[in-house]
């Protein structure tokens, strides 16, 4: 569990005059569940999209190539006219997985969607689509998985099933980074939290350490702590 699965050093991203990320550095262990939190425009999606290889950073480095980082975008990136199995098979071939058929079978098993394998994506619920979305990110068995707000638009039941699946992946050694607006998810599922605001990494530690940093009790309200933490940082 101590091997560093991912190392990010001095990452910066500029869009013209605007700095979306400023000198962000962190590491993630194998099997670690890392939450990336922050207000809108903090740079969460920019950070994850750089890790996934969607954007080239203005400065800094990422230890993993895009092919080693499984990417799960916020909106399911799937073909709605194809079936679950066809979507998985297509991306398995594009990812050049050694045995695409075996990979499809494995993902159908893991997502619990075997009985829906022949259904077109357009007929699936939002939760099931998101499960396929995550499964595609895992097809090549990447050591690192980056998920951009994976539980958005899911109902509590679907969310619970999704997190159970993601925690299972982490337990098997996949390093998982996920962005979220739901700070309760950070408290409940993340081993570590990266707090971003205005492109800066303000905090890197466990949720418990975050509560302490925010001056709250260990069983205090995480959301309240998060808001007061950001307010205090802005006032400095």
């Amino acid at each position: 569990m101590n091997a560093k699965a991912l190392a990010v050093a001095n990452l910066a991203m500029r869009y013209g005059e605007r700095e979306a990320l400023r000198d962000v550095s962190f590491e993630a262990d194998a099997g670690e569940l890392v939450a990336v939190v922050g207000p809108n425009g903090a740079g969460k999606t920019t950070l994850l999209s750089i890790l996934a290889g969607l954007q080239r950073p203005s400065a800094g480095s990422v230890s993993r190539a895009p092919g080693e980082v499984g990417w799960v975008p916020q909106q399911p990136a799937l073909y709605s006219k194809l079936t679950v199995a066809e979507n998985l098979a297509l991306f398995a071939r594009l990812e050049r997985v050694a045995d695409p058929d075996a990979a499809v079978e494995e993902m159908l098993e893991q997502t619990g969607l075997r009985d829906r394998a022949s259904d077109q994506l357009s007929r699936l619920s939002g939760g099931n689509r998101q499960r396929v979305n995550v499964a595609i990110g895992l097809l090549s068995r990447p050591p690192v998985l980056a998920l951009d707000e994976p539980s958005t638009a899911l109902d509590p039941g679907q969310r619970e099933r999704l997190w159970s699946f993601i925690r299972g992946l982490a337990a098997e050694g996949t390093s998982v980074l996920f962005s979220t607006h739901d700070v309760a998810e950070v408290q409940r599922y993340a081993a570590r939290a990266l707090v971003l605001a205005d492109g800066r990494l303000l905090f890197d530690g466990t949720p418990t350490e975050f509560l302490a940093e925010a001056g709250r009790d260990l069983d205090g309200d995480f959301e309240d702590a998060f808001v007061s933490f950001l307010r205090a940082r802005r006032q400095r």
Partner: protein
Amino acid sequence: MISLLRKDILILRRSRLTVALLVLYPVAIALLIGLALSRGPAKPRVAVVNETAPGARVEVGGRSVDVSDYASQLFDQVDAVPTATRAQAVAKIQSGDVLAAVVIPRDIAARLSSDVSQAHLEVLYNGNALEQSLVQSSLNSALAQANLGFSEQIQHAAAQAIGLLLKGGNLGVLGAPRNLVGLGEIPSLLRRVIAHQPPGPDRAALERTLAFATFAAENLTLSKTVLQTISQPIAVHTKLLHGRRTPLDTFAVVVAVAISEMFIGLLLAAGAVALEREEHVLGRLLRGSSTGRARGVLLSRNTLLAEKSLLAAVCAFVVAFAMLAGIGAFVGLDWSRVPLWLAALALAALAFGALGVSIGALAREVRAASLLAFLLSLPLAFLALVPSGSVGHGLYDAISAVSFVFPFKAALEALDAAVNQSSPGLPISLVHLAVLVALFGALARVGLRRLD
């Protein structure tokens, strides 16, 4: 690339209505445009009221012409509806049964025969500006032809009369003396008489008469030629500078096929690229392709664009060739030129595919891409068909510039050269298309820099 191609074909197979519309709509539009181009304007229905007495004849230059023959000649260019009275003709116009009416007045024969007073026809018409213009131009053209016919008859009669004056003989005119001496014979007769005349006032008078007769005979001979020139002052000799003359129907076939090919190539390519963005898959497919961290890249932008362009181009090519071959069964096309058709169709399809992917790369969703492709297609087709001289110089130059940077005109020229041997030649058009493929391919690549 093969996996992506298979996926696109699978999606197309599951979108049968879209594919049917994609093929049927452009083919229908193309055939309509082709039909409109290949056929001249329909003859307007015109009521004809002939008020002259039955069998009335016009005497022109000693010739007699039946007024009914004149009327039928006059109305050859319209769909003539014989009508008994002027009032009935007016009623037909008001009911929309005919577009116009022409009244041939009772006194037309007398006026034409008088050689001094001009004959008049009355034209009554109604309808919108377009219909009025159609009737006016048809009748003006018919009248111009009829007037030309009359003037030729007058010239012919005058030339005959001059010929008789020069040659002599029987003039055929009632009351004229028989076996008259011809003006052309007089100089030689006078010379013989003068030769036997002693010098004196009589001989001098005869010599003056000889000079006049010689001058008059020479000038009358010349006036026959002058009359012929006056009857048809401008004779037309046509010469095509490049290629060979293209029949209108085979050109219409080329236009119809090019339009179909453009619609299919453009809409399919634009839709296929835009679908990747609409399904949010673009980022997943292309991630890493521009980050310098190339390991694990699923697809490069070039591969994605090439696959979409090729798919659209192949579909457009197949439909366009089937259409050309199908129409070729009914229109006389030179089948020995099929390899050239294939070359023109293939490169045109690729150019349309390249333009399509550049549209798709810029649009955020399939509907926007399809609408943009559709909105671009029709104006491009119409601009490419604007003939030089039909608009002002500046506007034509602007139209030519726009047509030059989009593939429709180049495709039309390539196909026209391949099918009809028209100019500019096929190689120039193929090079033009190849340049456009590269240009729009590069533009599409820029459009795909945005992955969201």
